[in-house]
């Protein structure tokens, strides 16, 4: 079991178990545990990797996933809706990002490599990945390009 000692300054601490810990803390610990214990050569898929995590910690998460994944030889696939995580990933991660979007006509889901977006160099001239995603500009570029 997982326990944590918590308390206010200058008062007695008390022990809490996993049920009392924040979602973000538990999620982070679970991801680190998986990365430290899975067989090398395996694949770790994490949905909503940063749920419950403070945006200012996004860069720590990205760094940990990259470093531990590399160190232990584990491939990592994550999904996110979080602009802060996209900004933490930055321009260097562009070749590794895939956009999940919807085809307007058929309603089917589609996956597109971010670097295949024709307008990407222009979009990236005006805003970070996170802001582009928040403003829906990557999605509208995809729609425009699909309509051509």
């Amino acid at each position: 079991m997982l326990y944590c000692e918590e308390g206010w300054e200058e008062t007695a601490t008390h022990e809490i178990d996993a049920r009392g810990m924040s979602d973000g803390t538990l999620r982070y610990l679970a991801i680190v545990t998986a990365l430290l214990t899975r067989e090398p050569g395996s694949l770790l898929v994490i949905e909503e990797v940063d749920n419950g995590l403070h945006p200012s910690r996004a860069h720590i998460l990205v760094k940990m996933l990259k470093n531990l994944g590399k160190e232990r030889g584990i491939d990592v696939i994550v999904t996110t809706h979080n602009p802060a995580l996209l900004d933490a990933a930055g321009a260097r991660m562009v070749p590794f990002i895939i956009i999940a979007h919807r085809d307007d006509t058929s309603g089917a889901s589609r996956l597109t490599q971010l670097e295949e977006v024709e307008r990407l160099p222009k979009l990236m001239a005006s805003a970070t990945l996170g802001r582009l995603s928040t403003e829906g500009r990557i999605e509208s570029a995809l729609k425009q390009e699909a309509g051509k």
Partner: protein
Amino acid sequence: MKKVLIIDTCILCVWLDVPNMAECGPQHDRWDRQRVNEKIQTETLLSTTFVLPLASIIETGNHIANATHSRKERGEALAELMRNSADQQTPWAAFSDQSVLWSPDKLKLLADTWPDLAAQKLSLGDATIMDVAEYYAQMNCQVEILTGDHGLKSYEPSTPQEIPRRRRPR
């Protein structure tokens, strides 16, 4: 791989016909308006994106305002280009994301490195153009700096790119 052409101040001045700036570059590799036009036409056919760093826009604007004649007319020409690149009219894009170039960390790095470059007559604007180039190289674009300055021209990305597995030889 997408290609990005970054336009520096001296080339922009040549292209916009700024008085007394009709040519730039060393004698054996001279850029005049015709050569710049030809280059822009060739790259347009290749679907290259033309990136205008704000530094190039500001420095060119300064040259126009300080020109001996045709200031209004040349000003209009630059204004038209500014409108097109702000609207991202193909093939132009204005590099307006300030966080990449002017964050406190970047500003300090520039403060550390630029005085030596100044001694080699490289403007502050040109120094930031290398950062724009680096930014696009990181996202795996093919980058060319269009410039008469050979120091800038010979730019190579300073950090190696990370290559996705799908592009590695099996």
